[in-house]
């Protein structure tokens, strides 16, 4: 550690100085290099960056939670008030956690212990860090839960995580993190897994509690929209280094670095481009009166009610809505992975809803699917070639011909034909999603169903994959059913949009009409809740930087 490190000013809660982290085993690959920033009490610093930028490593290093077998700190200091946490003993670190610094995570679904009541999980913090008696602890738990505006906190405390919604679970996480009124709150993508309206509520909750307790907030996100809504200062990170650092107004409005400009330019605009002309009157998919009712525990749940739409050849139809809106159930019904309870499903002129098992097998090639997470949708033990030709081989195509086609399609999606002999882990997330798209094209489908197909990708990669999908639609005339919760993505890719809420279609029109003149209040609420509404102009200014190569 260098000698010239001086502790930070009094009002500074967290001061990261020249932090360096490398991999612990083998050759020490640098993960963080000379990262420095400060956060003052009551202020929010956003670290923004794409996957692999080191933003999460920075937060874990601060909490002393780096996986020791994999990563080690090789230089610098992290001052929490005046104490360098890198020098703290494990016991001291445990004392600091929750009492002076706490953390909330991305996935509220998995961040809570499923076998413990949420009240007990909040109480654990008090058990370990205070000497309160059982009665006092109980009162504090109820107070903490009501501070995050959970209804009926007494009742909530006795519930298990699976009995709460995603937003409620994140509120419990926040209650737990702030139970001891820490000086610093680290929030690692806390709203990424949530719906836009829930996201907005959680963000305003964090703001409210921050004002009340003068908490310093280190907020990690990949979403520039969230940054503009909540940050005082911004650190842009890339490949373990700080690229740009400054007050939010400067970084967003007048970025000086090319990379920041590229990030801003990659943000999909909420305003859709002018609609394309309809080139073909042919319908690839026609859904009428689709119903799906589930019977969990005997009680009927109408997940999808009377959904009808038409998807023309060479068109992209978006289904947007929040979780629980039924959009994924529609996708599964269209794929006939679920049998619809009622309704007709016409693919390229023939009704397929009532097909026998054998007829269905022959039909399946006409609708293919691209999934959300390319890291899990490709079999890790199979070479790309095996994965791609499996479909055609099942339908009796000769192997040599299939391999030739696979190579062609890989080139179509922008990958070299040599990729065929490699395994999925040898590709980046964006490349894997390209492979998944190529695989879907192997059977010359009429329709591709893309379920949140770009949601797991970084913005710059997302922009490339969106362009690829539009290009394929153009060149092959395939129709796309595009399921997404992200209105910005929908605006950039869809020709038409249907908006779903609680199993029902509330609005259905051209993409431009839905997003610029929404007719239904729910659609208006969704647009209203999308973070960073004023980013569009900034984004358009830097559009040309999207093509920057890393």
């Amino acid at each position, binding site marked *: 550690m260098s000698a010239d490190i001086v502790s930070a000013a009094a009002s500074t809660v967290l001061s990261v100085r020249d932090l360096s982290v490398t991999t612990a085993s083998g050759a020490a690959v640098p993960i963080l290099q000379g990262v420095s920033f400060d956060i003052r009490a009551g202020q929010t610093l956003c670290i923004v960056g794409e996957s692999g930028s080191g933003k999460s490593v920075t937060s874990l290093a601060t909490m002393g939670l780096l996986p020791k*077998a994999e990563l080690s700190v090789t230089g610098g200091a992290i001052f929490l008030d005046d104490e360098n946490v890198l020098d703290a003993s494990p016991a001291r670190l*445990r004392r600091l*956690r*929750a009492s002076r610094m706490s953390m909330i995570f991305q996935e509220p679904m998995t961040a809570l*212990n*499923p076998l413990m009541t949420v009240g007990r999980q909040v109480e654990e*913090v008090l058990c370990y860090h205070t000497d309160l008696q059982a009665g006092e602890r109980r009162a504090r738990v109820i107070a903490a839960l009501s501070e995050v505006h959970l209804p009926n906190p007494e009742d909530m405390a006795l519930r298990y995580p699976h009995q709460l919604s995603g937003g409620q679970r994140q509120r419990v996480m926040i209650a737990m993190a702030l139970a001891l009124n820490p000086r610093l709150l680290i929030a690692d993508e806390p709203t990424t897994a949530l719906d836009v309206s829930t996201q907005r509520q959680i963000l305003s909750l964090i703001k409210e509690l921050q004002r009340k307790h003068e908490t310093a907030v280190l907020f990690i996100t990949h979403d520039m929209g969230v940054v503009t809504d909540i940050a005082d200062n911004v650190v842009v990170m890339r490949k373990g280094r700080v690229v740009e650092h400054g007050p939010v107004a400067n970084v967003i409005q007048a970025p000086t670095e090319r990379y920041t400009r590229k990030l801003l330019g990659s943000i999909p605009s909420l305003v859709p481009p002018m609609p394309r002309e309809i080139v073909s009157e042919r319908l690839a998919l026609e859904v009428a009166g689709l119903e799906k009712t589930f019977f969990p525990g005997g009680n009927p749940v109408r997940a999808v009610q009377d959904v009808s739409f038409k998807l023309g050849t060479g068109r992209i139809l978006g289904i947007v809505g929040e979780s629980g809106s039924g959009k994924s159930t529609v996708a599964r019904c269209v794929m006939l992975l679920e049998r619809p309870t009622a309704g007709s499903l016409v693919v390229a002129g023939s009704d397929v809803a009532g097909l026998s098992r054998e007829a269905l097998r022959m039909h399946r090639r006409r609708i293919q699917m691209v999934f959300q997470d390319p890291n899990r949708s490709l079999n890790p033990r199979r070479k790309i070639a095996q994965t791609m030709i499996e479909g055609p081989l099942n339908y009796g195509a000769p192997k040599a011909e299939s391999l030739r086609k696979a190579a062609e399609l890989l080139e179509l999606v922008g990958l070299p034909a040599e990729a065929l002999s490699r395994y999925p882990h040898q590709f980046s997330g964006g490349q894997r999603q390209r492979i998944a798209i190529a695989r879907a094209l192997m059977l010359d489908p009429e329709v591709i169903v893309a379920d949140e197909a770009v949601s797991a990708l970084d913005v710059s990669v997302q922009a490339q994959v969106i362009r690829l999908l539009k290009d394929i639609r153009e060149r092959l005339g395939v129709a796309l059913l595009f399921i997404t919760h992200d209105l910005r993505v929908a605006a950039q890719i869809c020709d038409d949009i249907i908006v779903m809420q609680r199993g029902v279609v509330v609005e259905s029109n051209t993409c431009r009409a839905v997003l610029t003149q929404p007719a239904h209040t729910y659609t208006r609420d969704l647009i209203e809740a999308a973070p960073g509404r004023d980013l569009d102009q900034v984004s358009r200014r830097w559009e040309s930087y999207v093509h920057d190569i890393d």
Partner: protein
Amino acid sequence: MYGFIFRRLLSALPVVFIIAVIAFLLVHLAPGDPAVAIAGDGASDDQIAAIRRSLGLDQPLPVQFVTWLTSLVQGDFGTSMISRIPVSQLILQRTEPTVVLALYAMTITLLVAVPVGVLAAWKSGEWVDRLVLAMSVIGFSMPVFVIGYLLIGAFGTNLRWFAVQGYKSPGDGLIPFLYTMTLPAITLSTTYIALIARMTRASMIEILGEDFIRTARAKGLQERQVLFGHALRNAAVPIITVIGSGFAMMISGVVITESVFNIPGIGRLVVDAVLGRDYPLIQALIVLTGVLYVAINLLIDIAYAITDPRIRYS
């Protein structure tokens, strides 16, 4: 919960019935005539026919089955062909040693296997973990009688810390019980220690990678609380399954351990019954073993529900 248990008991009835049918047919379809076996060498055809009549073996099979099942339901398993003692009495005499041995062995298993498995998972990839893995391979692949005789040689005949054979019930006093039963219990538990330690390790490694473990650490909890308070219970479901079926196996099949240590238990009764073609006894043992497995599976399911609030039985 009680409704669930009641429904499970009801649904177990057909299973038990099928086991009874199989047990009955197994004996009647097997080659060899029990009447001939009972009559012994040099018996006349008339004598054999008389025996057959007295046992009801001349009746049609369905009639024999109904007769047998009716008395079975009333707790009458028939009389042993060899010893002429009622089967239920024979089995009852042998039940205590076997159950006591199984309970003792399972206690040792849990006390060793679970902490060792947790430790191995916590230090996954380090030397402790590799040592545990190596030991469990040895424990699993070493034949039970080898372990038994090794223990007898070392701690019985050489050091004279423990008895080399026989049975003492806990009712005979704690010291005599431990003195006699410790070596057989250790012998019986080695396989299960290896199995359950590996199971615990694998399950714990998976759970330790979960987000809520990171949350627990971020709360400032000590590793002990993280491991035993948060992780172990989440890792428990597969472990409980192995413990349950392991316990059933201990009771129904401890032939070798009982033979090595000369313990008058169920395992040796099974062997004697099969070798002597003691059909009523064999049938009773098959049915009771089936009932035991059904009961233990029910207990496993109840244990799941207690461990995991997300499992609701409706």
